[in-house]
């Protein structure tokens, strides 16, 4: 990306510095956005490689490639890296690039904090990955790190894991503070809250969620640290603590965290659908209210992850009903997207393909989520591959597809070049087929009774596991194509117009393509 942006820096009174120090010292929201996006892509490939190890081991019954102990390390790191290293930083990267341009601000409100919040991330993941080479191996207790497996029974590397989670948390918190301060104080004159683009709205809500729950995660790992090294007994039954308390605290963080990974996707999808349907988004204000209600509800549903820990009937009923309620605002969003397409004038460029796939496959993930909310049925689904299928449906063709859609949609704005439409369609179809072949059979495997986090399984699960592995390798391989397409676009291609898309709305399309190093130094007027 650097080549393109540098070619334009002469147009402005001060452009980026040269060489590597430009990226280390940068306080420019566009540079930092690019850093975040590249970092998250690197993590996506590393986490993906771990997924390939997992799927390869599961290709057939029996232990073939790795030992169960190493398998557990792979599934733990895969989860942590994908959640904290791939999806979240990608959304922060998009926020950095887009939020200032969408609200007509010259930059983020706290540019130096912005630099810091990015540059501590590589250290966090460096520490986490280095634990693979430590005595006793990397963390092996799953990304949910339930005590006491993660405390009394953890490998020594757990201390590094805790440190790493603290850094990730600090980075997310600083990033969210920045987003909120920017949105609350730097909107162009005339841009009321209810005139903000939906991506900005989705990020405002996401940032508040992050500020509410990342400190709770920090608290949880701090308690773990104290249990491990300072003799406290927060989660240790022997000292009068309670292992279930850990799960409550974790999921108090964990459930909003799930929505943190999907809300920005809602924003992105709304923009893309309205652009390619050439029709104003249906029900803007109900979209905003739906996101707000989802965010608020996310704080009162956490124990639906723990229906089998032995809660009293009243609690089980409450969490079941509250969880089912989330289907209402989520449904409203899907209906609004469909209504936007209805009587539109639709074309099928790659971002639209990803957005349509998002709507369909995310909805399927929503349906399985509704099924999981039904407590008695959850006794059968819980901790089986049905759950794995569910959350991968909302995270891969959900969050990840929306990120890819966003990249295709905005990359002409970022680089000034159009991506290769033919290759990108190929990438879409390979990913679409890959993702469904991988995860759809997992519904069946789970219903038939295969528990999750198993390195080996009974023979009746063999066929669909084999299919799933084949799909996973197809999906994995097609992401190499994605890397190629992005690189090709950064380096050259058909020049993009400022508007890029025929039906595009929003301030970011009023500036040149590629976007100059500094945009909106004087705020635009919004009518």
């Amino acid at each position, binding site marked *: 990306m650097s080549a393109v942006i540098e070619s334009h820096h002469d147009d402005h009174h001060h452009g980026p510095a040269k060489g590597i120090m430009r990226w280390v010292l940068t306080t420019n929201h566009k540079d930092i956005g690019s850093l975040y996006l590249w970092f998250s892509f690197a993590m996506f490939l590393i986490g993906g490689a771990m997924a390939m190890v997992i799927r390869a081991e599961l290709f*057939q019954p*029996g232990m*073939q*490639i790795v*030992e169960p*102990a190493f398998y*557990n390390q792979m599934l733990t790191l895969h989860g942590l890296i994908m959640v904290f290293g791939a999806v979240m930083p990608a959304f922060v990267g998009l926020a950095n690039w887009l939020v200032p341009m969408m609200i007509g601000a010259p930059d983020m409100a706290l540019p130096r904090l912005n630099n810091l919040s990015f540059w501590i991330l590589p250290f966090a993941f460096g520490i986490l990955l280095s634990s693979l080479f430590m005595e006793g191996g990397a963390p092996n207790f*799953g990304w949910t790190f*339930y005590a*006491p497996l993660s405390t*009394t*029974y953890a*490998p020594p590397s757990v201390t590094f894991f805790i440190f790493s989670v603290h850094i990730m948390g600090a980075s997310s918190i600083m990033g969210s503070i920045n987003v909120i301060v920017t949105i609350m104080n730097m909107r162009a004159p005339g841009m009321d809250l209810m005139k903000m683009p939906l991506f900005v709205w989705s990020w405002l809500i996401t940032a508040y969620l992050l500020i509410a729950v990342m400190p709770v995660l920090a608290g949880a790992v701090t308690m773990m640290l104290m249990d491990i090294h300072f003799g406290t007994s927060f989660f240790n039954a*022997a000292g009068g603590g309670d*292992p279930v308390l850990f799960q409550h605290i974790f999921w108090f963080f964990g459930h909003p965290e799930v929505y943190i990974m999907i809300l920005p996707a809602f924003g992105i999808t709304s923009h893309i659908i309205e652009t390619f349907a*050439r*029709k*104003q988004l*249906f029900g*803007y204000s109900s979209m905003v209210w739906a996101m707000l209600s989802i965010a608020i509800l996310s704080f009162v549903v956490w124990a639906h992850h723990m229906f*089998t*820990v032995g809660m009293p*009937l009243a609690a*089980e009923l409450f969490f*079941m009903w509250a969880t*089912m*309620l989330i289907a209402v605002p989520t*449904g*409203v969003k899907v*209906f*609004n997207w*469909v*209504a936007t397409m*209805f*009587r539109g*004038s*639709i074309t*099928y460029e790659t971002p639209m393909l990803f957005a349509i796939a998002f709507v*369909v496959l995310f909805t399927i993930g929503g*349906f399985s989520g*509704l099924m999981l909310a*039904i*407590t*008695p*049925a959850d*006794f*059968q689904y*819980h*901790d*089986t591959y049905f759950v794995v299928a569910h959350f991968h449906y909302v995270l891969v063709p959900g969050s990840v597809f929306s990120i890819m859609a966003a990249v295709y949609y905005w990359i002409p704005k970022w680089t000034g070049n159009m991506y290769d439409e033919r290759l990108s369609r190929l990438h879409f179809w390979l990913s679409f087929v890959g993702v469904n072949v991988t995860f759809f059979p997992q519904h069946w495997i789970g*219903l*038939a*009774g295969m*528990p999750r*986090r198993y*390195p*080996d*399984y*009974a023979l*009746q699960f063999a066929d669909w596991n084999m299919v799933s592995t084949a799909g996973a390798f197809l999906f994995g391989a097609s992401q190499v194509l994605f890397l190629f397409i992005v690189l090709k676009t950064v380096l050259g291609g058909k020049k993009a117009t400022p508007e890029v898309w025929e039906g595009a709305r929003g301030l970011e399309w009023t500036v040149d393509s590629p976007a100059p190093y500094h945009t909106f130094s004087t705020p635009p007027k919004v009518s």
Partner: protein
Amino acid sequence: MFQRLKNNYRTIFYSLLTTSFYPAKAFAQWDNMNMREGVTQVSRDVFELHMLIFYICVAIGTLVFGVMFFSLFRYTKKRNPVPATFHESTKLEFAWTLVPFLILVAMAVPASKTLQDIYQDEEGEINIQVVGYQWKWEYKYLEDDINFFSNLSTDQDEIYNLVPKGENYLLEVDEPLIIPVNTRVRFLITANDVIHSWWVPDFAIKQDAIPGFINTAWTKVEEPGIYRGNCTELCGKNHGFMPVVVKVVEQEEYDNWIISKKNEAIKLAELTEKEWSLAELTSRGEGVYEKNCVACHQASGQGMPPIFPALAGSEIALYDKSRHLEILMEGVQGAAMQSYANQLSEVDMAAVITYTRQAWGNAENGDGAYVVPKDIVEYKKPKI
């Protein structure tokens, strides 16, 4: 981590051979793609609930995706060059908030009802304490004072693809839980070390086993048979290797089994008193070792250092009989080694210690001292 791969070409060939046969027969099996109906009232209720919600989701999905794909085909730029301009409708938005809400209420009613039935935690005719261990289950029959461990009985060679896999690969144990049919059985579920979860799909029971706390579950099984399940909470290395097997039998057979279990205990006491030869002890010990120790210390006695130390050539196994005994009786504080004092009988304890002091050349390299059941009885006596 790749060490297994090196010497396992044969095994991969084997597994390719076996797997290439079943797609044709198994892909047709609907059983392998849906939840099991099970053999209790609760499990059938849960199954019906599952299917009900599933069909509702399919109906909603068909409707929504129907409208969506219709729009996608009908309102392309080619067919509809000028888009409509409407972008809100309070009535419509209100309707699609209210209707889903009503559907959800309709779902919540049967779901809440079933949940209440499951929570009818009355007295059980038989009460069984289920304890999760890394990585096995212990069953204690509270009324009859019987207890035993249930270990995976699948051979390590099957797991590592050295021999073909059996029908119940990874779903078989050395000693299943046995309960009578048509009897209300209550399970008091807890754990010894980390959190486990006890799941029998055919009973629709899944309850977490949490150290220090007990959870309850109950069942009343209507058909005799063998029902297989799993541990469903990540509990460490061998999480995937601690299945649950429940054998449901007629009342009469159950009563006989209880009597025979009690007789077993008497026989065991006699065995403890018996004079044991070294060969007898070693061969019994090998069996005990395979059941209880190989998961960590490996069949070769090489262990998996640093967490699971090697026994072959270990100083303690060679020269320090009393420390050897002490470790098995009391475990190693702060390490993975647990106490087997309450898990192994005196006979098995003596046998496994003897075996590990004899195997892998330990007898030749060390003092070869061995332990008899009476030594264990002696150890358990008060020292003062």
